[in-house]
C-alpha cells in the first residue's frame, strides 16, 4: 500500500510539472484478482492506480503503439525487472528512445510489493546483471520436469499435441512486447510464408516461427502464456529458447539499451554448432 501511495504521488507530480505526458500502470479489474492496464493522464486517473503482487502483465508493449512516442514527449510506465529488459530490447532494436521513458520499477515477493530504485534503464543495470547471475528461485513446475525428460521425438509429439489446440487468435503475438511488427509475417501473402489455417500443420508452423523470432529477445514475462485462451504452455518454449541462446551465445537479452541483438549480429567466435 505504501509503495502504491508513493507512486500515485510521484505520478501526479511528474504529470503536473510536465515531465511526463502519461503514465501506464494498473487499476482494479473485473474481479478481485484481476488488474487492468491504466493510462494515467490526469490526477484523478492517478488515484485509480493499483500496485500489488497481482500486477503481472508486462505493459511495455503499449509504448510502441502507433503515435504514442512520436511527439518526443516522455511517458512513464510501471515495470517489473523483465519489463525493464523489454524496454532495453525495444531500444536496442530502435523501436523507442529510452530517454522518453520514465520507469516506475517494482517487484514483488509473495504479496509484498517493493519499489525498485531508479527512473531510466541505466539505473537498473546493476539489478539486471544481478538477476542474470542469480536468477530468482522459482518452484519447478511438474510439466516442465516432464518436458525436460522427453527425448526429441517425444518433445516434438508433445508440442504438436499442445499446438493442435491453437485457434490462431494471435493473442500470444498481440500480448508480446517484442511482436511489434506492423505487418506480421503471417499476414503477408506474397508469398504466403506461413499457412493461415488453424490445423495441425498451420498451428505448428505459426508457433515454431514465433518461437524462433523470439529467441534471444524473449524476457519470459509470461504475457503470451497468460493471454493464450486455450492454455498452451508457451512459457516453456520461450524459456528453453532463452536458455539455448545463453548457452550458445552467452547472451542474456535486455541487459542494456545498446546490447546488440544476438541473432542480428555476428561475432567471429560465435559457435557454429547449429550449422549442420
Amino acid at each position, binding site marked *: 500500500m505504501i509503495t502504491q501511495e508513493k507512486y500515485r504521488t510521484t505520478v501526479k507530480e511528474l504529470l503536473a510539472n510536465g515531465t511526463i505526458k502519461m503514465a501506464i500502470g494498473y487499476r482494479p479489474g473485473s474481479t478481485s484478482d484481476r488488474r487492468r492496464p491504466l493510462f494515467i493522464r490526469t490526477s484523478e486517473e492517478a488515484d485509480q492506480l493499483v500496485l500489488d503482487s497481482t500486477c503481472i502483465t508486462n505493459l511495455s508493449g503499449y509504448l510502441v503503439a502507433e503515435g504514442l512516442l512520436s511527439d518526443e514527449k516522455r511517458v512513464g510506465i510501471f515495470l517489473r525487472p523483465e519489463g525493464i529488459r523489454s524496454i532495453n530490447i525495444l531500444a536496442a532494436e530502435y523501436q523507442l528512445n529510452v530517454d522518453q521513458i520514465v520507469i516506475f520499477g517494482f517487484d514483488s515477493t509473495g504479496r509484498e510489493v517493493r519499489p525498485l530504485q531508479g527512473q531510466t534503464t541505466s539505473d537498473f543495470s546493476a539489478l539486471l546483471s544481478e538477476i542474470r547471475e542469480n536468477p530468482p528461485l522459482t518452484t519447478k513446475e511438474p510439466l516442465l520436469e516432464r518436458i525436460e525428460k522427453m527425448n526429441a521425438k517425444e518433445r516434438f509429439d508433445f508440442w504438436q499435441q499442445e499446438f493442435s489446440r491453437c485457434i490462431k487468435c494471435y493473442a500470444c503475438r498481440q500480448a508480446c512486447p517484442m511482436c511489434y511488427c506492423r505487418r506480421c509475417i503471417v499476414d503477408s*501473402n*506474397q508469398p*504466403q510464408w506461413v499457412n493461415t489455417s488453424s490445423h*495441425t500443420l498451420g498451428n505448428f508452423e505459426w508457433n515454431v516461427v514465433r518461437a524462433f523470432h523470439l529467441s534471444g529477445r524473449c524476457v519470459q514475462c509470461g504475457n503470451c502464456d497468460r493471454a493464450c485462451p486455450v492454455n498452451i504452455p508457451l512459457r516453456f518454449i520461450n524459456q528453453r529458447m532463452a536458455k539455448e541462446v545463453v548457452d550458445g551465445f552467452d547472451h542474456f537479452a535486455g541487459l542494456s539499451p545498446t546490447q546488440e541483438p544476438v541473432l542480428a549480429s555476428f561475432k567471429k567466435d560465435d559457435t557454429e554448432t547449429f550449422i549442420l
Partner: protein
Amino acid sequence: MTETIHNAQPNIYKPAIMKIVARHDEAPGVRTMRLEFQNPADHEQFKKTFRTGMFGLYGVYGEGESTFCVASPETRNEYIECTFRQSGRVTSALANADVGDLVTFRGPYGNRFPIEEFHGKNLLFISGGIALPPTRSVIWSCLDQREKFGKVTIVYGARTVADLVYKHELDEWQKRADVDLVLTVDPGGESPDWKYRVGFVPTVLEEAAPSPDNCIAVICGPPIMIKFTLISLKKLGFDEKNVYTTLENRMKCGVGKCGRCNVGSVYVCKEGPVFTAEEVSRMPAADL
C-alpha cells in the same frame, strides 16, 4: 486430419470454371479479360441472374478470390468481362493467366442499377481512373437500348493519358452523335497530343454543367473523387436520390456471411454494391 469428400450437397462457395478467351491491356498494370463459362448450367444461371451493377469473385485456385464488378453489360451476357489492376496476390495470378487458361468466377452477387427506372431520363455518367469498368457496364446496358433513354453524357477522367482505360471505346463514344463524352486528365497528366480537357473531374463537371432536370447521375471513382464530385453535383442542383454510386469493400464470401464488408449496418455484398448518394450519406463516413 480425416475428412470425407461428398459431392451431393450444393455448395454456395463453389465457383464456376471460366476460360479466358481474350485479354487486353488497358493501362499500365490494368487488364481486361473476357471469360466464357465452361459449364452450360453455370452460364444459364448467370444469364438468369445477372443485371448491371452486380459483382463477382474472380479467382485462381491456389491463390484465392478477388472481388470486382462485372464490367460487361447485361445486354451482352454470353460472356463476362472484367477489368482489374494487378496489385495483390489474386490479381497478380489473374494477370499471369493467358488466353485459353482457366480461372474461376463466383456470382453474380449483390444488387443492381435499376435501369428500368432510368427509362425516359437523361443519363450522366461520371467516372475516374480504374473505376470506369462498373460505369461501363451501365453505359453499354443503356446504349444497347439507346432509344429508351434521353441525353447521355459521360464525364471520364484519369490521372494521366496513359491511365485512361477502354481507349478504343472512348473513341467510339467520342464519334457517336448520341453520346456526349467529356474527357479529362489531371493537370500534368496530359501528353503533347492531348486534345481534350485538363483538370480534375469535379471541376470539369461543373464547367460542363449538365442539367439536373429529369437526369440520373451514376458516379464511380476513388473515394476522394466521389467526395468532391458529390459536392459539385449538389451545386449543380442534383437530388441525392437521383445520384447512384457503387461501393467497394474487401470481401471474402460475397453472400453476407463472412462479415467484413459492412459499412455501418449495411452489408455491401448483399444490399450493395449499388447505392444512391442519399443512402451513402446515411452511412457512418468514418467506416467507408
